[in-house]
């Protein structure tokens, strides 16, 4: 299993054709206390760069863009009751959704952990 990152501060764990997506620790810190998340329902088709989820802090609402294209297999329902999970454990229990990839080659445009770290340091 390998982890990729986007410039929009999302992480993607890829295991064969399936992947899990969330936002990075850096992102949650920038957003502040998360109060609401709307994750896509299973079966939804998403395409790279399109809207996939909504995340809200008290004073800001942000769209989470799909890092890659594919079909949602599961949204993290735990976030509905406890959006604070994204603040406390963004890169594990605070995952957003699971999906199957429709085009694995899209992964090539994403960053690995080292590249992402350098990207964040440069901000």
């Amino acid at each position: 299993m390998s982890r990729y990152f986007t410039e929009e501060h999302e992480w993607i764990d890829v295991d064969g054709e399936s992947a899990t997506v969330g936002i990075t620790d850096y992102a949650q810190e920038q957003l502040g206390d998360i109060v609401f998340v709307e994750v896509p329902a299973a079966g939804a088709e998403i395409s790279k760069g399109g809207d996939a989820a909504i995340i809200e802090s008290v004073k800001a609402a942000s769209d989470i863009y799909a890092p890659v294209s594919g079909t949602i297999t599961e949204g993290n329902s735990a976030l509905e009751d406890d959006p604070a999970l994204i603040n406390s454990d963004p890169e594990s229990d605070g995952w957003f959704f699971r999906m199957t990839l429709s085009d694995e080659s899209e992964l090539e445009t994403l960053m690995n952990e080292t590249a992402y770290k350098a990207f964040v340091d440069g901000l």
Partner: protein
Amino acid sequence: MSDLNKGGWRPEMTEERRDEQGTFTGNRALMLDEALIFEIGDSETTGVDLADFPQVETRLGGMERDRRIGLPGLSEPEAVRHYTRLSRQNYAIDLGLFPLGSCTMKHNPRLNEKIARMKGFADVHPLQPVETVQGALGVINELAVWLIKLTGMHGVAMTPKAGAHGELCGILCIKAALEARGEDRKVILVPESAHGTNPATAAFAGYVTENIPATPDGRVDLEALKARLGPDIAAVMITNPNTCGLFERDMKAISDAVHAAGGYVYCDGANFNAIVGRVRPGDLGVDAMHINLHKTFSTPHGGGGPGSGPVVLSEALSPFGPIPYTERFGDGHITLVEEETAGDRHPHSIGRMTAFHGQMGMYTRALAYVMSHGADGLKQVAEDAVLNANYLLRSLEDVLDAPFGKSGPCMHEALFSDMGMAEGYSTLDIAKGLIDEGYHPMTVYFPLVVHGAMLVEPTETESKAALDEFIGALRSVAIRAKAGDEALKSAPHFAPRRRLDETLAARKPKLVWPQTELAEAAE
């Protein structure tokens, strides 16, 4: 009162413990807490006495209510005390300077309140025969004339209920005008510094919005705007004076360019107070502009409304204005153009924006306001508003960063940023510090184009002494923020409440008091 605290407190927000010298009631002399009506009232108490009702055979068709509603009642003394106590937990213009940028919190004359309550205005039904409401229609008509003349425009749509509703009306008129020309333009250009209502309105009317870039001196970038104009641009929405408190010097050139490209110019009139009586938007090529009667024309804000947002329209857009509207005949008789006659008189109208005739109660107040000032007084209003803002700007720019301070005078509001504060101190701390000094804070974090923005609008109804005291207070708070004064982080200390946990409110929304009475009744 311990059960008032059952929500718990959030330790990470707290810098200090509650004063150990508490009182039995939790009150502090004149600082009185007040429970909810659901805690002090009950469903059998009432504060009204009604006449005995005759026994009749009901005609409700079997739809009689068979459950409790859960509405607590209060006797009159309890009600008067409840709301009086609540009122004392509010800041208000009547208490002090209210420097909320873009909101024009000026004095609300009490004559206007008296007039709005005259039976002939307050106690007439909107659907009475027009012959029985000639005076009420006269008020609408007279105010319409004032608004048209003050703005140098061709017509006015009086009915929109508030600024954003007026924006919507203006944008719909533009859309209708384009439709009449057989064009389907999709894009509205909006500056980044715009009020949030602008893009929201454009989207509500089915448009895509694109940002117009700004120049480093805080104004619309005319060349960039010209480059973007084309057959897909329906309109440009511009606030003038803009939300950085600056007059758009190129406004006429912008209008000319937009018109040449077949588009329309919408002007957000929220900041009209800076130029009323001195500059007419019609002379700048504006096609539509809403006027917030609750800003420039002093109708009370009432804790968030009601507002009123008439829209002045150019000759090109006037045929599309909404119904109903008033028409005065040579003999003085006033008629109302509504559904019945609109087909002949006003065939291109977009239709109704609201039931009835708009915000009559605001028209009476606004008309009393403009009549009281007259054309000469309104010019003085703009001049004093601008003078007061510049006086604040120049008196504070040595302690607060003024991002556009160098680019000349401001209009009716002065913009500052939180640059130069101690590490970890920001606009929010300055705002909360001002609360302890007895002021409502300025507008914070708006416009979005300036980091940690503080937008200060004193209005013309403040004396020099009031301004000097405010300047002293804001200077003191700014200096504390620069020095990293710990106490500022937990301000306000002396308000009815300390900083409130907005995260908790949004994570676990409690929007209504739980219906316990019903549950008990069901058991």
